[in-house]
């Protein structure tokens, strides 16, 4: 169920790589834990993010949670559709529910992330 070519973080963010551009969102597991998302706070374009720095917050009916950047870099775009339709994060977390696009500063950050197989194994550990 998790896309094969994405990288995953322990905080349940995913990143899809396209050249030096990364698209970032949260995983299906994360959206399921959060419940219905009602608001997404996103950073401005041009914001410089460090590895594991808070991108913004996701508010659901149950909780408010930080989303952390899985890599360092500069925010070049955010998903404006989420302003009107935060439910995209619940419905299509791995594609249309993406949150930001980032120009990656340091590709070596990707080595700190998990492959899909590692992430699935990681989830098994949590769910036990």
């Amino acid at each position, binding site marked *: 169920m998790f896309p094969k070519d994405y990288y995953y973080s322990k905080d349940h963010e995913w990143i899809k790589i396209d050249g030096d551009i990364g698209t970032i969102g949260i995983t299906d597991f994360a959206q399921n*834990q959060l419940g*219905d998302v*009602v*608001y997404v706070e996103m950073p401005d374009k041009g914001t410089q993010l460090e590895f594991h720095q808070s991108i913004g917050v996701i*508010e659901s*009916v*149950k*909780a408010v*949670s930080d989303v952390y950047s899985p890599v360092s870099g500069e925010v070049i775009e955010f998903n404006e559709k989420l302003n009107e339709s935060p*439910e995209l994060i619940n419905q299509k977390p791995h594609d249309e529910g993406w949150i930001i696009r980032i120009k990656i500063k340091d590709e070596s950050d990707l080595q700190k992330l998990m492959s899909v197989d590692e992430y699935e194994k990681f989830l098994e550990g949590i769910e036990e």
Partner: protein
Amino acid sequence: MIREPLLFDISEKGKRGFRLPELDVPGDPSLLKGLPLRTEIEDFPQVSEVEVVRHFTRLSKTNYCVDEGLYPLGSCTMKYNPKINEVIASMKPISYIHPYAPEELSQGNLEILYVFERYLSEITGMDAASLQPSAGAQGELLGMMLIRACLEDHGDPRKTVLIPDSAHGTNPSSAHICGYGIKEIHSDGSGRIDIEDLKKNMTKEVAALMVTNPNTLGVFESDIKKITGIVHSNGGFVYMDGANMNALLGVCRPGDMDVDVLHLNLHKTFSTPHGGGGPGAGPVAVKSGLEPYLPLPVIKKDNGKIFCEYDRPKSVGKVRSFYGNFLVAVKALAYILSLGPKGLREVAEFAVLNSNYIRKSLDEHYHLQYETPSLHECVFSDKFQKELGVSNLDIAKRLIDYNVHPPTMSFPLIVHGALMIEPTETESKRDLDNFIQAMKEIAREAKENPTLLKEAPHQTYVRRLDETKAARNPVLKWEKKSDKNDRQT
């Protein structure tokens, strides 16, 4: 059940509560010229007195309150509010005093504030207190402002506040509004602060640690002296969220744990009305190092005369009009005096006993993520029921059908699907048993008829609400619509 119509919907032109007689002396309309007068408010409902009274009385009967039954909202301490508090606060010399009355005519009321501050300092083991903050969140903010004022005064402004993941949800917000960055400290396997994580993050940039003790798992931070030691040795302050003070009352004191500043919620621990029945009050108590920064005015006594001191150059200034929520302080003082030291300790003892009675009675039926002994509240999760497709929300909604207010849900975040139950000392064994029985029934229903839970509540004025829709598209006030059906949906 018949749905109560809005007053707008039963409005009939020309109806009113009462009529004044016609003016029988000569009037002079020119006197009112230029004033913003109007004869009618557009769309204001026109109804008779009896219609208004019945409307609100019927609505009030759909409500639920602590005078009606158990209200086990974890970390909210929804205890019974003794009626003697209201009797004292309604006494004319107390309720009729004007805040602008001269001090020499207000000595009795000033003494109430003065004595109450001393009692709160004694109960918490602190050196001084301020009754100014209107509620817990303002108390938290003031506490952080005092820390900031002191650090800046000593030329050491810092940037970050550490907050454990088991702390109260308002703490990060208070620190953020005070201009600090937030760093979360993890819990260890027992649900207590991970000391190693604290040590790692306790740098010279850290202004304070905000600790809730007992934390939102109801677990006492037994290493609290070690924790305060680590923070102090790095030049930081320890702020304690006193929302869970009901567990400690008369047994141990934050001051003796080397806490520097804490707030209390009079509407929790000290039995004044909570929520819509408020207003609240969030006094702040400090150690002497923070005393110079307390907000204005500070109540002082000299030569038998009590007065308000305003000449305090280091003070953070005014944080609220006049003297805080004075009548709330009166009610809380009445509570303290009617219980006495022994009674206050019994409050904590029975609050802890009641919570543990529930915990022990339900631990086979509901999952306990942390087995560490807990004090005044216990946190179950929906893990067993989740396998049957039933969530903590369904359990909470079903409890309403058993005429019990649902517990705090989905908090703390470290327990997924949390049900945080705090019965307080108020409840008798019979009422606790009724609650336990309801929870057992619900656990059984989850196995035998999960649909019953998923569609709950069944016995209420309104059924399951669409919380997501309410959060995404809140309708906060009535608006005139051309189609009458629109506004009823």
